[in-house]
């Protein structure tokens, strides 16, 4: 007989075999046996958060910035329900998470026991798959399968619910086997014909456009390299979704900015007018497409995605290639190089007119804003932050709202995995705990959460985690005292009825930082901004930076709802009368 292990031991043996280094979690009654076992496994470090949602987002930040799955450990009942937001967030943005939750003992399931909830029922729609372990013999297999499901195909969160008696029960342990693909759910079976067809379309295009998304990031750093090679080879203009930023260098001339609701004028107009649209690892999200009927009406559309259900879900495409972005790009590049002469020369000439048109759109300078020497403009703050941090390898997380869009527009990313933001679910409060996770994965790198004062208060308690583990994260709060994006919509669409979007009684962020035991810095005018930012960067510990910005600034350009890409609202620079002066303030 081989040795018998308890369920709790098996959890750790499995984590060790999967080379897990960090767990983000919070203890409680139903996971105590697992927490008891923690001391025997020195290769695994537990990060104690202050709220289970924080554990989830921290694990997301860890996963996004490192390419490894994030591990979450929570207790039953409220522990599990608190992590639901983070699981849903990870599901929407395809982040691999393995969440292990405790459950009441099997004989109490269904009796409304203390801290009991139907965890697998609640998390079924927000995970790729979940398991309730009812028999200790199934535990090793389930845990290994959980890693397999979370990290293969289109990645996503999974949950394993382990009742307390199962954590005590004993069985044999088996190492992970090379599992035969789960029900044949591997999706990397594109054909050479499809690649040939793609190349055929590429060689014919006069107004081509490449539109990339988070799938490139998820496909790994190699995919970003392949993308760069591919884009330079064909010479096409490239745009990216919010999640795809960094896959292609943001300061490269071929990159024409982010597209979508707050994308650049040139990117959105190019999307509308192009004759060939190559979607690489993006999903035609509604923040991207605008009005579906008038989405890129003149183009042939190609969609490269690992998830077959993404194809034709929203936009019908002419050529679908189901596969891993890296593999598809590599084989396309190979093919192009084989018949190099055909494409490389002729096509770049054919599209020179297209580039001229794009250049004209670029001259609009749609990200421009009217700067001020009295108040700090939020765009200016992000630009200064970028200029002062671009010399080092910086990781940026964000919360959700105006500041997120300004960060996406004005901070230029040159590498993948440097940009962590909640795109699909739009979770306010994501950035701070995500920064915790990023800093855990990259202890020596500069990690900044570009935040809004409303969002950051939703998960502010995680500052305590940052202080406990001495994680020098920088929380750069663009403080405009409003839920800025809500205020912007109310100004533009609801006759400036600023219903409940002003935050009265905001805390003093400098004192708050001091209360948490970290450093607080406040900047209230443009003259002191640079110096204060430098002070933040140079400080060795965590910092909360209260950047007092113009409360009335709006985020432009913008595609209003129900409008196609070529009907954008541009910023005040472009308007004859400057509509957006501080009138809103009087209404507060």
């Amino acid at each position: 007989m081989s040795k018998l292990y308890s369920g709790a031991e098996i959890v750790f043996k499995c984590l060790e075999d999967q080379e897990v280094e960090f767990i983000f979690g919070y203890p409680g009654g139903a996971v105590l046996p697992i927490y008891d076992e923690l001391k025997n496994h020195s290769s695994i470090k537990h990060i104690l958060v202050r709220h289970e949602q924080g554990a989830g987002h921290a694990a997301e930040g860890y996963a996004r910035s490192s390419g490894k799955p994030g591990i979450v450990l929570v207790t039953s009942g409220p522990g599990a329900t608190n992590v639901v937001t983070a699981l849903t967030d990870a599901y929407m943005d395809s982040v691999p998470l393995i969440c292990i939750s405790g459950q009441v003992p099997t004989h109490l399931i269904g009796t409304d026991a203390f801290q009991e909830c139907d965890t697998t029922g609640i998390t079924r729609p927000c995970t790729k798959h979940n398991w309730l372990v009812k028999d200790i013999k199934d535990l090793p297999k389930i845990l290994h399968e959980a890693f397999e499901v979370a990290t293969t195909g289109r990645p996503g969160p999974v949950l394993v619910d382990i009742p307390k008696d199962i954590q005590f029960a004993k069985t044999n342990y088996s190492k992970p086997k090379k599992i035969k693909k789960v029900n044949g759910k591997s999706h990397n079976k594109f054909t050479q014909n499809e690649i040939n067809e793609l190349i055929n379309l590429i060689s014919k295009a006069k107004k081509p456009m490449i539109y990339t998304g988070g799938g490139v990031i998820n496909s790994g750093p190699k995919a970003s390299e392949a993308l760069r090679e591919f884009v330079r080879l064909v010479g096409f203009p490239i745009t990216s979704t919010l999640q795809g930023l960094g896959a292609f260098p943001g300061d490269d001339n071929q990159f024409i900015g982010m597209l979508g609701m707050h994308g650049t004028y040139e990117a959105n107009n190019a999307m509308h007018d192009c004759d060939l649209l190559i979607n690489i690892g993006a999903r035609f999200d509604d923040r991207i497409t605008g009005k579906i009927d008038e989405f890129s009406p003149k183009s042939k559309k190609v969609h490269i995605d690992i998830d077959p259900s993404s194809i034709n879900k929203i936009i019908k495409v002419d050529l679908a290639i189901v596969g891993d972005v890296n593999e598809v790009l590599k084989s396309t590049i190979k093919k192009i190089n084989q018949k190099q002469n055909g494409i490389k020369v002729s096509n770049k000439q054919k599209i020179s007119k297209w580039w001229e048109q794009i250049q004209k759109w670029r001259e609009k300078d749609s990200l421009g804003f009217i700067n001020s020497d009295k108040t700090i403009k939020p765009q200016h703050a992000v630009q200064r932050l970028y200029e002062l941090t671009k010399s080092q390898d910086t990781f940026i997380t964000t919360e959700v709202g105006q500041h997120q869009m300004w960060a996406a527009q004005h901070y230029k990313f040159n590498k993948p995995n440097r940009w962590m933001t909640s795109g699909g679910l739009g979770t306010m409060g994501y950035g701070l705990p995500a920064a915790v996770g990023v800093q855990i994965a990259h202890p020596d790198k500069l990690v900044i959460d570009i935040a809004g004062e409303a969002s950051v208060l939703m998960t502010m308690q995680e500052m305590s985690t940052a202080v406990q583990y001495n994680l020098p994260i920088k929380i750069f709060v663009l403080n405009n005292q409003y839920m800025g994006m809500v205020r912007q919509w109310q100004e533009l669409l609801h006759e400036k009825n600023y219903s409940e979007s002003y935050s009265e009684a905001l805390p003093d962020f400098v004192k708050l930082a001091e209360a948490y035991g970290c450093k607080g810095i406040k900047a209230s005018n443009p003259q002191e901004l640079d110096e204060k930012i430098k002070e933040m960067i140079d400080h060795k510990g965590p910092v909360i930076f209260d950047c007092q910005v113009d409360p009335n600034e709006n985020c432009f350009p913008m595609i209003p709802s129900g409008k196609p890409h070529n009907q954008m609202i541009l910023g005040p620079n472009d308007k004859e009368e400057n509509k957006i002066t501080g009138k809103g303030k009087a209404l507060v």
Partner: protein
Amino acid sequence: MANPKSAYSIPTKKGKPDTHIIVVWVDNEAGVLARVVGLFSGRGYNIESLAVAEIDAAKNISRITIVTTGTPQVIDQIKLQLKKLVPVHKVADFKREDKKVIFKEMALLKVVGKKKKIEKCLKACKTYNPVILDKSSKSVVIQITALRREIDKMSKKLKSLGLISTSRTGAIAMTRGADVFK
């Protein structure tokens, strides 16, 4: 007209909805039906009827048959989303008017009344393979197998003849000929 205040785009023109029979082969494990049904309700797909039972005890496989309506795009999504579920092995999709596929539904009909009325009932059911499962002096329980719309018609017709209770299964499907769906 579009609501100009919406933060979302307005619904665009839709294709014509069609009735499809979706057959799903799944691992017979706890929660699998909830996964399939939850996918339908969560994504706003429609379920007209549902039939499920284990079909292979050794391999632990259940077969779920779902009748649904949707535009071609929605039906495509249903199939692709179902295939993503971990316990799902394969998914078949048949159109209701497909001649190569047999669809059947079973109904139990309880009729209470005098002998004459009961006989009338049995006569009316004749084309739908009626089987008498229970009989007393003033009642009868009849089993019929037929298409959904035929059973609809029958239960309407028998109302006046003393039908007091109806119990129906969802539709199940099988291809004709020697081939099986792979």
